[in-house]
């Protein structure tokens, strides 16, 4: 079986099936069955077909490359021949296949083997040319490695589950709907026709676009499908078009994503104009002049050429730097490389809702819940992480530092906001943002496999959680957790599958033995963070933030569970009407919870010698060249203090067990705290709220990000727009009386300046002095217990600062 031709065919067919479904439903939607009921079957059938094809692709991949890469020592590799990857060319538009060359040697660490190989296995090629200018080409193609295959299976599986689920959830749309959230001016609720088929139409288009992102063989195609998933998300968030909140949220999502795309475009331009290609992998092209086939280097091999795959400034970038008249082309080109990396990452920031563009995702919960489960938790928002992972070879250490810091900030901010949210979907949305922050953080600190693994595990448990929440909402018709409670008895399937999801996201497990899927991925991330702290004491604070985030995650997830399912019902009316969802809805929950538990389990497959999780091993096959084989830490060129540790560093026993204990204890702590508050009701959350009103308001208002952006960007943009329009209307007529006005305005400004600055400075200084005094006075509470706390806190802070600044000098 020739994988080089079967894989693209299989995955290409899996990719196009949803498109076919979209076209059918788009053209014939309402005529498919009663009120478009069969549209659901068409879409579900298509995605199921995709799943089957993806599964076959996975099996044929493992059949060829195995699950486990043979492990060997790096030393054995030092003297190995370092020939460039061999290419097998086949006739026209031939996909080039690069073989995995695994040197045989025995691994000592069976669990965490090194996977060092010359050129990982991948298949790439073009299907279709959009445009061609000279040697420049914009094409639609594919790039398939084990990550692609894994992602394909994950996406199609979850999408299939959600399609089934949606048939139950969107059942109301089959007939006329009365929308209780929309009140017309005459006081009645809105009455409208159902839009069942339209929902599945968008869902199919989304699946097609998402699979396109995953399959994409070049940056241009990625951008194309990147935009398409964005617009699908826009459609789906705004599915209830009559609701103003929904359409506003849809607009916000699209526009905020465009802000990210702005950065992404810059990154793409920087790459495009210096490298002249968008292809990820090396591609066979036919030379128009001579007619012979030659290998054209893709982005990855231009950035990391040669046998060692170290990051170098490609020739094109040096030339681009030289064209600007720069002296030090090496350094200038490196800057360009960093800009390209950070630019591409900006796109990921937008799509994956990372700080500072995270504000759209919680609002996106206006869409129907299956959408939240599929688009806004498992797949589309993870596409940002996927792209960051795909683009990993291009990221310089400086760019990775940016990624790590952004991820770290995101996971912290989102986790804190989730503590106070009461809308069940919003809690999950913030949790999604926070978990995506984890993945980005993992990538940023050098944990490629850790990040990708968390991507997969998170997709399962978070879509599970969302679908459970959808089931709850379906039963009680509200999102407000303060109106739920005690539902465990009414809907046991939902309650216990959701518990599975909560345990998985908290990373529950028995240390060193076995755990839910989140246990493995979170451990890997924490371990990498510890390894990162070892080489970057200055940025070690990120580890503490990540650990704190883990505790907070456990806290708010169990808070959610307790508030929803345990205790006494808070709203008797809603409780009485609650009921378990139909089978078509909770069967997918069971399927997903099985995966949420076991997807990362280290199962030894018969015939394969190595131990460990098949998922990890599969992902290990896709580790970008030059990343997996890094020995020690790689340092930045511009900021030499930044070092990215190799992922092997985190597999050292000491670090790994420390990570396990840290992850376990933080999760346990969060769980216990949630139980104290909401399970045993030993502590009263309302009291905390009243005790720290400012903090509560701050979190309740989501750190005032929306207001901040409104004031910082939206208002000025409208202002600028008004200015532009005003210029048009008045610039010709009003120049003359303008000058008089200018004088007037100038005097007014002078007055204003006088009052505000000259007077203001003096007043301000007085007020400041007084204010500082007051602030210090407030410290003197007279409470013995707080003084004790101050002492402890002081000690901790002192030690922390010492370790931060003297860490390298004192430690060891």
């Amino acid at each position, binding site marked *: 079986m020739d994988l080089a031709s079967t894989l693209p065919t299989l995955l290409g067919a899996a990719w196009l099936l949803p498109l076919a479904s979209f076209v059918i439903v788009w053209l014939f939607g309402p005529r498919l069955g009663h009120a478009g009921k069969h549209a659901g079957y068409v879409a579900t059938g298509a995605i199921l077909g995709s799943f089957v094809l993806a599964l076959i692709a996975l099996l044929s991949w493992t059949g060829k490359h195995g699950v486990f890469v043979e492990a060997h020592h790096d030393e054995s590799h030092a003297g190995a021949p370092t020939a460039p990857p061999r290419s097998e060319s086949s006739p026209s538009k031939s996909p080039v296949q690069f073989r995995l060359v695994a040197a045989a040697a025995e691994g000592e660490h069976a669990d965490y083997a090194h996977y060092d190989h010359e050129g990982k296995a991948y298949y790439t090629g073009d299907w279709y040319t959009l445009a061609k200018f000279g040697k420049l080409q914009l094409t639609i193609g594919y790039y398939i490695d084990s990550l692609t295959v894994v992602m394909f299976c994950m996406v199609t599986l979850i999408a299939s589950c959600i399609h089934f689920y949606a048939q139950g959830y969107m059942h109301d749309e089959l007939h006329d709907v009365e929308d209780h959230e929309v009140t017309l001016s005459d006081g009645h609720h809105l009455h409208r026709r159902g839009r069942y088929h339209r929902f599945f139409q968008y869902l199919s288009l989304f699946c097609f676009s998402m699979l396109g992102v995953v399959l994409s063989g070049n940056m241009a195609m990625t951008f194309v499908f990147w935009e398409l998933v964005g617009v699908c998300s826009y459609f789906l968030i705004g599915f209830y078009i009559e609701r103003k909140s929904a359409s506003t949220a849809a607009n916000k999502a699209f526009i905020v994503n465009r802000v990210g795309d702005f950065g992404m475009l810059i990154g793409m331009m920087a790459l495009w104009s210096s490298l002249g290609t968008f292809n990820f992998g090396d591609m066979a092209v036919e030379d128009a002049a001579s007619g012979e086939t030659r290998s054209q280097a893709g982005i990855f091999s231009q950035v990391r050429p040669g046998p060692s795959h170290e990051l170098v400034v490609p020739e094109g970038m040096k030339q681009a730097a030289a064209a600007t008249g720069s002296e030090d082309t090496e350094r200038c080109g490196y800057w360009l490389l960093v800009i390209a990396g950070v630019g591409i990452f900006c796109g990921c920031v937008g799509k994956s809702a990372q700080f500072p563009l995270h504000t759209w995702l919680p609002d996106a919960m206006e869409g129907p819940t299956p959408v939240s489960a599929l688009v806004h938790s498992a797949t589309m928002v993870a596409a940002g992480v996927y792209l960051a992972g795909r683009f990993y070879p291009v990221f310089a250490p400086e760019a990775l530092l940016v990624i790590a810091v952004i991820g770290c900030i995101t996971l912290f901010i989102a986790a804190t906001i989730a503590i106070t949210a009461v809308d069940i979907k919003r809690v999950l949305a913030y949790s999604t943002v926070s978990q995506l922050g984890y993945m980005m953080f993992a990538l940023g600190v050098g944990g490629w496999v850790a990040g990708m693994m968390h991507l997969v595990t998170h997709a399962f448990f978070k879509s599970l959680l969302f679908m459970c929440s959808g089931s709850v909402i379906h039963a009680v018709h509200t999102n407000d957790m303060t109106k739920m409670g005690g539902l465990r008895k009414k809907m046991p399937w939902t309650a216990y599958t959701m518990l599975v999801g909560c345990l998985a996201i908290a990373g529950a497990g028995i240390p060193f033995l076995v755990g839910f899927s989140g246990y493995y991925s979170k451990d890997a991330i924490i371990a990498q963070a510890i390894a990162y702290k070892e080489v970057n004491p200055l940025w070690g604070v990120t580890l503490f933030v990540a650990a704190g985030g883990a505790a907070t995650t456990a806290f708010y997830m169990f808070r959610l569970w307790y508030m929803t399912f345990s205790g006494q019902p808070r709203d008797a009316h809603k409780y009485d009407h609650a009921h378990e969802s139909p089978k078509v809805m909770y069967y997918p929950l069971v399927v997903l919870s099985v995966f949420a538990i076991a997807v990362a389990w280290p199962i030894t497959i018969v015939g394969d010698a190595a131990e460990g999780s098949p998922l990890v091993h599969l992902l290990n096959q896709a580790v970008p060249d030059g990343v997996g084989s890094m020995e020690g830490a790689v340092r930045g060129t511009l900021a030499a203090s930044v070092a990215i540790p190799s992922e092997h560093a985190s597999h050292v026993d000491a670090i790994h067990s420390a990570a396990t204990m840290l992850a376990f204890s933080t999760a346990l*702590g969060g769980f216990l*705290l949630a139980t*104290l*508050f909401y399970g045993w009701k030993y*502590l*009263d*959350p309302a*009291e*905390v709220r009243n*005790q*720290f009103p400012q903090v509560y308001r701050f979190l309740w208002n989501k750190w005032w990000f929306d207001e901040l952006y409104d004031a910082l960007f939206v208002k000025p943009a409208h202002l600028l727009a008004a200015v532009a329009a005003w210029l048009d209307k008045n610039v010709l007529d009003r120049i003359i009386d303008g000058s008089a006005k200018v004088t007037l305005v100038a005097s007014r400004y002078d007055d204003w300046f006088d009052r505000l600055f000259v007077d203001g400075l003096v007043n301000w200084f007085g007020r400041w002095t007084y204010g500082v005094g007051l602030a210090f006075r407030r410290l003197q509470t007279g409470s013995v*217990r707080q003084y004790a*706390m101050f002492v*402890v*806190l002081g*000690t*901790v802070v002192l*030690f*922390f600062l010492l370790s931060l600044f003297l860490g390298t000098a004192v*430690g060891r």
Partner: protein
Amino acid sequence: MDSINVHSLLFLLFAAVACAFAVAVVVTSNVVRMAFYLVVSLGATAGLYFLAGADFVGAMQLMIYVGGTLVLLVFGVMLTAQGPFISMRTRAGEWIIAAVVGSSLLGLLLSTAFRVDAWKPPAEAREQTASVTSSRLGGGLLGYRVDRMEQAAAEQADPTLAKNSQGMSGYLMPFEVISVHLLVVLIAAAYLARPKKRVGPREA
């Protein structure tokens, strides 16, 4: 598999009791129970002392602490334990702050404890002999250090070392000071706690 080390087993037992009851002291809000848990915790600590070869200190711990100080505390509890004061709830926010600050301090201390190589366990357990340290401690108070014999000898041989003497340096002076201090304290305590003429709640 190695055989179980009895010393380690006992240590784990005492350590678990000491820690668990220390945490219990924190968690419970009933002051009477608190006192009881504290007794157990301190008792278990005495056991740890014995295991570390400090039999005299362990004995003192049991006698003075568990036997004396805590009796004093229990008296205090009994004198003040009226209805509302037996269990006073703390607000949840303070719990959170205390938990966060406390856990960060704990993390700091634990990471330090396991970081220094010199503090790691010895490769193999040293033979533990039953020893009586009271006489050595007594000698030490008076300035006769059994544990510093070599240093003392070295200082005798080389007077330059004697300037900051490490050898026969005792604790006689502190011992005396503490004795007097104890006396003063007891008198002061008695004075402070004596019943006033005017007894009665000033405010409800």
